[in-house]
């Protein structure tokens, strides 16, 4: 049940990101709801499941839209793992948790992305990278993350996620 729900959420998220969210671009930046979902699920599920969820979110995105298979899968997986490590150490009800974690994770995600894209021989522009990825995307993601986190929290308190017949 749990796996099914998370899977459906991941798939629907990708479809929304590629269609509806394109209308909500700020300064040509799209909020990375995939990353936020990985963070929210990782906070509730711990490092191993966080890494698995991150892997599948990234892989799906790579296959449907990516140019390089594995790029997003790798970065999301590492992000999910690292966020999941603090799973037992935080108060999950505090809304500052997703906000700060998303900000840090976005910087981390984009930096690893930059490194990998650079190593694969693509052209990079550092100034634009800071303007677009670090400033705009960090703010946008952090604010959106609070709303998504509230819904993920509700989902985890509901009865569907407590039954464990999968």
């Amino acid at each position: 049940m749990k796996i099914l729900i998370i899977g459906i959420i991941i798939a629907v998220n990708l479809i929304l990101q590629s269609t509806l969210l394109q209308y909500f671009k700020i300064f040509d930046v799209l909020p990375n709801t995939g990353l936020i979902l990985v963070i929210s699920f990782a906070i509730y599920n711990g490092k191993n499941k966080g890494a698995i969820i991150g892997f599948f979110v990234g892989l799906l995105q790579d296959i449907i839209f990516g140019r390089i298979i594995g790029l997003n899968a790798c970065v999301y997986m590492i992000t999910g793992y690292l966020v999941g490590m603090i799973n037992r150490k935080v108060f999950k009800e505090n809304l500052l948790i997703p906000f700060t974690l998303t900000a840090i994770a976005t910087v981390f995600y984009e930096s690893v992305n930059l490194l990998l894209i650079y190593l694969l021989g693509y052209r990079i522009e550092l100034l634009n990278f800071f303007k677009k990825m670090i400033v705009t995307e960090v703010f946008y993601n952090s604010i959106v993350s609070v709303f998504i986190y509230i819904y993920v929290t509700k989902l985890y308190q509901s009865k569907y996620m407590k039954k464990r017949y999968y």
Partner: protein
Amino acid sequence: MIIAIAAILLIIVMSITSRQRENISEIERWVGNIFTPVQKVFSTGVTTVGDSLSSVFNIGKIKKQNGDLSNQVEELQKELIQLRMERDELEELRELRYMLNVVEEKDSFSSVAANIIGKTPSNWFDIFTIDVGTKNGVYKNSIVLASNGLVGRVTEAGDNWAKVSGIIDNNSSVSFQVLRDANTQGIITGSITSDLSGYLFDSLAEVVVGDKLVTSGLGIFPRGILIGEVSDVARTSDQLLRTIKVEPAVNFKKLSKVLVMTPKNTVE
């Protein structure tokens, strides 16, 4: 530990897939085949609602646009008459050329219209998927156009979907020539901020703001497709290169329908 191994495996997969590939793998094909129909339904709904909403909000703008357009129609009609006269001359010249047995270079293309069904969630690249694929005769390196200019090329094609990489993409380069002077050529590239910029091969060549650029026929794009207009001309600090900024003819933000052209001789 497992994570480290998985990451290394993924990096290997990345290095394999980042090279030029002829065909996509079976898994990609299937995931794409399952996903794209759902996406298509979604994007049709979203575009319909989005378009009608934006037209409600932009009524004032539309009225102004209407006025502008009817002015433009008048101007164009005048131009048309002149061009008709020139066309007759051209036909005469063609006949002369035919008599002299000049070999004609003629590319024949098969074209198919397509809807954009999704744009990439990544902020790094400019990739979108369209709802035609190998079943409709669209293959890798097919050329994608909009009504008023060049959009990009197909990078991967599935059964009934294909990934298109736009010319404003970070990794795309297009060779161009200036419409008014075919000898002035250069290369433009995209960027992560979706700007087009480029340089001229000849640093002494004359380019002014407002010049129209078309594809030069080097590379996979056929000659003579409109790319955009020069919006800024500058020199690099060492005076060796003349760099230009280009405003693309196609509005990539509002793109929803495209035309895909496949060269006929590459179809197996």
